[in-house]
């Protein structure tokens, strides 16, 4: 594995988006992963529609039938992959733009641009997470966002942050090693996370969190998706 890796340097990440006052983080995490997978499969970076997921995806957890994707009221990335698999794929952002509100489904199957081939969950092991990131593209992850409300920059590495209270869906796009931590007089390896709160939050919309001990549950809910190649379609 390379010591540092960032999918932004390889053209697999779209610009930072803004979910507005809507609990649709899960849809942004889903589209981010599929955008990366579609880029790897086709060489084309396309911004995909979160609103399609907000409006049309009501997929339920197979183990908990009353836990379903519910637009601004929350959802789950693995459910959304399942929806995309069944629906045939996602439209472009420009064809089905984001409104930040729950609406009626206006999905047009003829305008699908990216399709899911398969998806899977990644083990808790940090080397496996890094390997899947490098091999398969950006990964959907869940995180405990308690420190994110006040985050401005730097490598976040709280002494205490529950790994069991995952409440925010984000996108893992890379990792680095040179996050110098002055207090510890050593370099601190970190994950690079794309958020969906606009560019005026964090480090131009990104969050850095330290690696090594599943801080804030960052390693607990990781999933990867593969996109269909053009010839498969």
């Amino acid at each position, binding site marked *: 594995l390379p010591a540092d890796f960032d999918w932004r340097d390889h053209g697999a990440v779209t610009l930072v988006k803004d979910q507005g006052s809507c609990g649709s983080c899960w849809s942004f995490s889903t589209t981010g992963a599929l955008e990366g997978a579609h880029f790897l499969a086709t060489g084309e970076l396309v911004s995909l529609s979160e609103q399609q997921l907000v409006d049309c995806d009501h997929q339920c957890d197979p183990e908990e039938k009353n836990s379903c994707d519910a637009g601004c009221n929350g959802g*789950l990335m693995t459910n959304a992959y399942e929806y995309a698999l069944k629906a045939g794929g996602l439209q472009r952002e420009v064809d089905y733009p984001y409104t930040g509100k729950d609406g009626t489904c206006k999905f047009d199957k003829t305008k699908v641009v990216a399709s899911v081939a398969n998806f899977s969950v990644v083990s808790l092991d940090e080397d*496996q997470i890094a390997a899947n990131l490098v091999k398969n593209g950006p990964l959907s992850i869940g995180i405990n966002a308690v420190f994110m409300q006040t985050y401005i920059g730097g490598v976040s590495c709280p002494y205490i942050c529950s790994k069991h209270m995952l409440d*925010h869906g984000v996108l893992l796009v890379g990792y680095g090693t040179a996050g110098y931590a002055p207090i510890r007089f050593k370099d601190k390896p970190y994950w690079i996370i794309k958020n969906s709160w606009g560019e005026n939050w964090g480090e131009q919309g990104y969050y850095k969190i330290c690696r090594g001990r599943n801080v804030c549950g960052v390693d607990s809910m990781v999933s990867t998706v593969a996109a269909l190649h053009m010839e498969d379609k």
Partner: protein
Amino acid sequence: STVAPKETDDDLLIRQVVSAGDDQLLSAEHHFSSFKARFGKAYETEEEHDYRFEVFKANLRRAKTHQKLDPNAVHGVTKFSDLTPGEFRKKFLGLKRLRLPADTQKAPILPTND
């Protein structure tokens, strides 16, 4: 509350020394005015304004606590500083609990050497 050994870090005992004069120098009112101007915040009534100011002050204290707990990052005023933690959760978070079914496909183990 207690801290489980796994949650701690070897460096836990080293704490950043924060300038004690910061609070006196920068008042909450000044911070709130800057916050409103920077993020284009406006409140419909005086009551709402006063309430948001109280929330803002609580968040300043919270940011200071976060800074102590998370000294490698920078914590402070963000566009969410006029929201209570509950409002923040309701409006900007939305991840449901994952319950993996037994037949969930697990990613194959990849080689990580070389």
